[in-house]
């Protein structure tokens, strides 16, 4: 099995029209062609590189990761001599991915990376997640390299980035017992020692994914006496210093192969990343957006796995003399699963393209001054990435849970048994709407784009994109739903609308925007390939019903009714 080659929709997004611009900028006009044997000579050559590397990812996911997933789930990691030892299957996965050179994919070639844009890198994450969502964390934490690359000193980059490309593992150590969603309360202390000119970390971190990683990025309080986010800085800790005790590994519901640890830092030497005091307010926010994109990929990958399991089973399982896929209630579930996956995948790669553009311009701006036009382009891309990332995280993770739930439902009693893969997918899915910011926090991040009209503006841009005549009726349908969104937001953004009620109804508003944006995106995809038409129509139908429901809620729940909900 090859999880890249058996899913034509992936290559569809790899060849999106905007890719030519993204790749051209990423390779800075293919200026290294001929000098570096790894540098592509033109767009086609670059896409061919991505295609060939994704083929390796697809093969390893389909053959190695998938085969190990069950035993990894059963075995899990262990602590031996204050070190976390992965399950045997996880070790084999990591070894295979390292040998295949699949770490440091997005890093520049001078740091032994492949200099791939985010689109193929995120696609690889989706493919890996389809095989084993837990392993996707271990592999996907190479994302930490991006933070070091963007904000670290040259010395730090030269020292650590090539190691990450060669397979050194990473972790981002943010959460503490009293600082979860509220990271401003982080207490782990960083002290500067004047004598040896080094920083030392002391304190506890909790729920740290891949807690015993080779290279750790640690959020710590560097400013004594401070109490909020402005007193926090970001540090790099190298595992070889051996100054961290692993207190325990959590026993989790799902993603059991991915170790989640509680750690005690005792005079742990660390290096400052970037500038002091910017730890939370700049670096973690940036890292967090990357991580949310990663969860988006993880969610779509897991949902794809669950959908395929359900589809195969529904075709094979016969009841009342025919395959259960023939029954309306079953095929309805399957079609909606597919529409949800297609919708969120489209949103995933749309978001990724904007992340790519903004990151690439940012990298170029370190070399030369951007033109006014480029600066404007970068700003737009940045804003689009910021508004779509929480929407993606919200929808993809909730959908992954729904799809995994329906996957078990289609399996009936068998799905409840441990023998079937769907129960693992169901357990693995549960964390997706929690970590890297719960769904509720995604709403908090996204709601300002409802208030300031950014989502509406984005919808209007999709509305003006060229479209084949035969698809115009579908566009009319989406426009009608968009009017409902305008109505909903006009209620919520009225000056007299109470703040608490605004927060109460925020999720309804953000989700309404989400349904419409996914409908528009699938319509654009359908314009390029009719293979998306059914999913697009089903998404529009779903959007129509879901938006009507949300508008009703917003219209009905006013100042009087909110009291009914207060506990």
């Amino acid at each position, binding site marked *: 099995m090859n999880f890249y080659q058996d899913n034509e929709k992936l290559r569809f997004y790899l060849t999106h029209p905007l890719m030519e611009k993204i790749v051209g900028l990423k390779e800075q006009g293919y200026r290294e062609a001929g000098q570096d044997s790894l540098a592509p000579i033109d767009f086609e050559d670059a896409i061919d590189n991505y295609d060939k590397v994704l083929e*390796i990812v697809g*093969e390893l996911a389909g053959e*190695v990761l998938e085969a190990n997933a069950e035993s990894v789930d059963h075995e899990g990691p262990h602590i031996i001599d204050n070190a976390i030892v992965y399950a045997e299957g996880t070790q084999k996965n990591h070894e295979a991915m390292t040998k*295949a050179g699949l770490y440091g994919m997005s890093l520049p070639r001078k740091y032994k990376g492949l200099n791939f844009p985010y689109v193929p890198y995120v696609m690889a994450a989706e493919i890996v997640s389809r095989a084993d969502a837990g392993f996707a964390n271990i592999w996907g934490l190479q994302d930490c390299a991006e933070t070091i690359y963007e904000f670290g000193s040259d010395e730090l980059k030269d020292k650590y980035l090539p190691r990450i490309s060669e397979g050194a593992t990473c972790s981002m150590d943010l959460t503490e017992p009293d600082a979860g969603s509220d990271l401003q309360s982080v207490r782990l202390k960083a002290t500067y020692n004047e004598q040896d000119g080094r920083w030392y970390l002391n304190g506890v971190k909790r729920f740290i994914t891949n807690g015993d990683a080779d290279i750790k990025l640690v959020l710590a309080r560097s400013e004594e006496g401070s109490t909020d986010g402005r007193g926090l800085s970001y540090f790099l800790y190298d595992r070889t210093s051996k100054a961290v005790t692993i207190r325990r590994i959590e026993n989790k519901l799902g993603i059991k192969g991915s170790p989640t640890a509680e750690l005690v830092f005792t005079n742990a030497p660390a290096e400052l990343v970037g500038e002091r005091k910017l730890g939370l307010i700049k670096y973690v926010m940036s890292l967090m957006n990357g991580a949310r994109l990663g969860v988006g990929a993880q969610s779509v990958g897991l949902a794809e796995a669950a959908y395929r399991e359900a589809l195969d089973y529904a075709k094979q399982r016969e009841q009342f003399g025919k395959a259960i896929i023939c029954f309306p209630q079953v095929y309805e579930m399957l079609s909606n699963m597919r529409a949800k996956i297609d919708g969120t995948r489209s949103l995933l790669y749309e978001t990724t393209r904007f992340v790519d553009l903004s990151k690439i311009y940012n990298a170029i701006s370190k070399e030369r001054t951007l033109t006014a036009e480029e600066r404007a382009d970068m700003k737009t891309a940045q804003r689009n990435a910021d508004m779509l990332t929480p929407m993606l995280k919200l929808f993809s993770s909730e959908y992954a849970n729904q799809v995994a739930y329906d996957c078990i439902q289609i399996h009936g009693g068998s799905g409840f048994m441990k023998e079937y893969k769907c129960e693992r997918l169901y357990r693995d899915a549960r964390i997706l709407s929690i970590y890297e910011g719960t769904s509720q926090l995604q709403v908090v991040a996204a709601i300002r784009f409802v208030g300031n009209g950014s989502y509406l503006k984005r919808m209007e841009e999709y509305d003006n994109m060229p479209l084949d005549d035969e698809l115009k009726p579908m566009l009319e349908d989406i426009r009608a739903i968009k009017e409902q969104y305008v109505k909903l937001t006009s209620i919520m953004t009225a000056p007299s609308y109470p703040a608490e009620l605004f927060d109460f109804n925020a999720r309804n508003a953000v989700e309404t925007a989400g349904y419409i944006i996914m409908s528009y995106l699938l319509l654009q995809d359908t314009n390029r390939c009719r293979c998306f038409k059914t999913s697009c129509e089903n998404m529009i139908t779903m959007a129509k019903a879901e938006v009507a429901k949300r508008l009703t809620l917003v219209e009905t729940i006013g100042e009087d009714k909110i009291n009914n909900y207060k506990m």
Partner: protein
Amino acid sequence: MITSKFQILVLAKQVPDTRNVEKDAMKEDGTINRAALPTIFNPDDLKALEMALEVKDRIQGARVTVVTMGPARAADIIRESLYRGADDGIVISDRKFAGSDTLATSYALATALKKFDNIKLVFSGRQAIDGDTAQVGPQTAEKLNMPQITYCETLEEVTEDSIVVKRRLDNGCETVKSHFPLLLTVHGNAADCRPRNAVRVISNKKVCSLSEAKERNLDINSLPDNIRTKIQEWTADDINADPSRLGFAGSPTKVKNIENVVLSKKENITLTDNENDIDILMKELIKSHIIG
């Protein structure tokens, strides 16, 4: 051809993928319909490549060259090997080789290998999935007057002048040590080959042989060294082979007839849960030493 002081050769074959055979896999006359079957790297040979690469990992300066005999498109095998860690390769290709049986093939391979004067190790898969003879490796060793270890499963130890391997045999396994030069055939139980490596794929994907360059209308001399020199093509003349020992002329094997054998169930017995049937089953299991 650049050779190293620790030269390793891997004999590999491009074969039709007989693992996923469809209805049109055989022609009416009983021969293989090669057009209908995709070609793959012979599975045992991939394992041989892995063992060769494991030696290269442990011996500094070792060089792995893959040798394949077949049509020009067998250059695919060399590229696949480059993606996984080989240094370069040779396609032995000539119409004069057509119709070679194992004797003629091993003669051609042995003659080609004589062009290397410093071979330490030759690896080959135990057998190819299209012919299943397991003869080419041993015959090549005989012709080169080289000791051989067949059915290798694990590489235990290797130094600059000796190797220790574990052989898989019907009744157990055997650990064998040998000095160089040496030919080894690798068993299907050996470790899977390492995956293609992203960096190696990107830097070697354009590597081509002379005939591939011609086919794509490329001037081979204008191509950069790293693309031009990694796959060499050798003809019968290049290896100074005796034409009477090649192809049909050099192949004493004469195929009389090929039959398309369809396996059917012959000795199946349906057993129910009555005492008598269970008794029959128990006796059968005891007789075949599955239990008892």
